């Protein structure tokens, strides 16, 4: 689960990581009182989860209340990565001497969390030159290791002391809140020499949410994705018109590739999960029915633990309720003959292979 900048900064505040004074605003009245609190000049920032906010014009430095109002109403109308800002963060402007990068993230290859630090900020971490990396032991970072990162980043005196404190606090945050990523980009040294986190990017491990109820209260990024996870399947909204449904993440991923290769554009990725019961199949199809722009549905099932008869019964039931988009299905594996006979006489079109089902579904476009 990805947090908004202001939610990440709430965590920074909780763990003692210095941030500029800031207020979250939704209305013009709130904007005025926020400006009184943080002072001018200020920075107005769109709160979105998508990247590329700066390039999309989602950040503005303002010197007066008028400028702030204009910037706020302009930013509210933006779409950044398809996303409209849910709120704005109004923050005291910080005079910057230097921008740096600091993050703690999972390195899957070495099966360890790793610190990444660099004396450049605000740029993409992948294209970053001269970055320092340091693995984090599973039971926490030792101060000498934090000092070694500071040393390798060539930070001395007051800079080193502040950096080590921030790194230790960020690691504690990352560990205790069970983040997959805790990033400060940029971490700035301001004009008066204080180090301060100007942005936050925090991703919480979804699988650890049962230990962190405060995050599970937050609304899901996509209401349909929230609905799907409640019903026990995974759903990702995409921008095409052909819904892709199957059992097993790898199988559905592979079906998306088949669709793309045939020239189609998927409307969603929907993995029913292993051992899907009829009710789950029904819930999944009813969700697809609600999906705007979806003209057809491709169902790809390989029955193993999943009983193909359960899938067929679910399909039959939802199609019988009416209003369902045309379904192109490949159902093979355990009990497939019974599954086929269950679907005989329904409008569900059956194909012997995934490739043939894909071809038929795409060519109807």
């Amino acid at each position, binding site marked *: 689960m990805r947090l908004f900048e202001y939610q990440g900064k709430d965590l920074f505040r909780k763990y003692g990581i210095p941030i500029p004074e800031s207020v979250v605003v939704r209305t013009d009245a709130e904007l005025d009182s926020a400006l009184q609190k943080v002072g001018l000049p200020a920075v107005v920032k769109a709160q979105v989860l998508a990247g590329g906010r700066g390039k999309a014009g989602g950040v503005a430095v303002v010197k007066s209340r008028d400028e702030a109002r204009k910037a706020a109403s302009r930013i509210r109308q933006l779409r950044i990565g398809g996303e409209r800002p849910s709120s704005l963060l109004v923050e005291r402007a910080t005079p910057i001497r230097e921008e740096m990068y600091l993050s703690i993230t999972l390195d899957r290859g070495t099966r360890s969390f790793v610190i990444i630090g660099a004396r450049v900020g605000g740029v993409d971490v992948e294209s970053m030159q001269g970055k320092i990396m340091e693995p984090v032991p599973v039971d926490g970072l030792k101060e000498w290791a934090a000092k070694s990162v500071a040393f390798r980043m060539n930070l001395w005196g007051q800079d080193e002391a502040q950096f080590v404190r921030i790194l230790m606090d960020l690691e504690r945050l990352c560990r205790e809140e069970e983040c997959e990523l805790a990033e400060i980009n940029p971490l700035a040294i301001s004009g008066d020499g204080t180090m301060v986190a100007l942005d936050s990017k925090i991703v919480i491990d979804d699988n650890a949410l049962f230990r962190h109820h405060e995050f599970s209260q937050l609304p899901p990024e996509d209401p349909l994705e929230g609905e799907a996870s409640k019903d026990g399947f995974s759903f990702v909204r995409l921008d095409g018109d052909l819904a892709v449904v199957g059992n097993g993440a790898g199988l559905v991923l*592979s079906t998306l590739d088949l669709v793309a290769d045939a020239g189609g554009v998927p409307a969603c990725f929907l993995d029913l999960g292993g051992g899907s019961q009829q009710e789950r199949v029904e819930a999944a199809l009813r969700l697809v029915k609600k999906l705007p722009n979806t003209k057809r549905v491709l169902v790809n099932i390989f029955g193993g633990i999943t009983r193909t008869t359960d899938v067929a019964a679910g399909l039959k039931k939802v199609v019988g309720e009416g209003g369902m988009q045309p379904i192109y299905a490949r159902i093979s594996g355990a009990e497939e003959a019974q599954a086929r006979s269950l679907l005989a006489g329904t409008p569900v079109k059956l194909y012997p292979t995934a490739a043939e089902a894909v071809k038929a579904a795409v060519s109807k476009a």
Partner: protein
Amino acid sequence: MMLPERGAPIIVQGITGHYGSLHAGLMLQYGTNVAAGVTPGKAGERIMGVRVYDKVADAVAKTGATSSIIFVPAPSFYAAAEEALRAGIKLVVAITEHVPIRDELKLVELAKTMGATVIGPNTPGLIIPSRLLKLGIVPATSFRPGNVALFSRSGTLMYEIANLLSTNGFGQAVALGIGGDPINGSTLTDCFDWVRNREEVKAVVAVGEIGGDAEERLAKYIIDTKFAKPVFAYVAGRAAPKEKKMGHAGAIIYGNLGTAESKIAALQGAGVKVAMTPAGIPELLASSLKK
């Protein structure tokens, strides 16, 4: 990586649950020696004739088992796995889905210090048809004894590809799912290490997907260790969007990290024959192994 011999006793942790009892039954049916079950508070019960114990240590003392398969839900998973390792279990097959990353890291660390193997979590398990050994939820009907080793990050894709291999005359020496999470107890490389000196394995199939760098690491391993057996691969997710978890917690592209293109290029660079569809795998095997 250590895998059990034919007839080796196996413990099922979480055997009294719906999923645990269903699959304990299917494993027995396949011919696997499910020797004991463990569910705290259910000692003395029998599930399909299999005696249930409160503790792994009790089950180990009675059966001498050194392998355990875990079906307990994610919140109690780490405690169950730690209990197994501390009771002397040397192979943990972790079927449990949705395990937190930090629990996985702790388990990997503990297994290393105890000299044990972990497969998964979020794995369908493994099957060795010639040993009548099925440790997991893989559907037995897709698999036949044979000479191909099949290793996969995805469950259903493994079943589908095994089925295609079987119907085209390529049985399997072993088929094993490493799990769909960002952290795997055993990696694709560990699996390749297990087969590299096994006479009975004539070809290896790796099924990858977007996210992480397991395939890139495998490619490097094949080159660095001069892996001699023919290797075939399929990588799912060429059409997947970035920054989205595609069903598996581990199937996510960050920036340019973890794309299918990078994995396919790395594997091809290591001399691996890469199929563009699951159905392409048996075709590639047929055309290269006949020569």
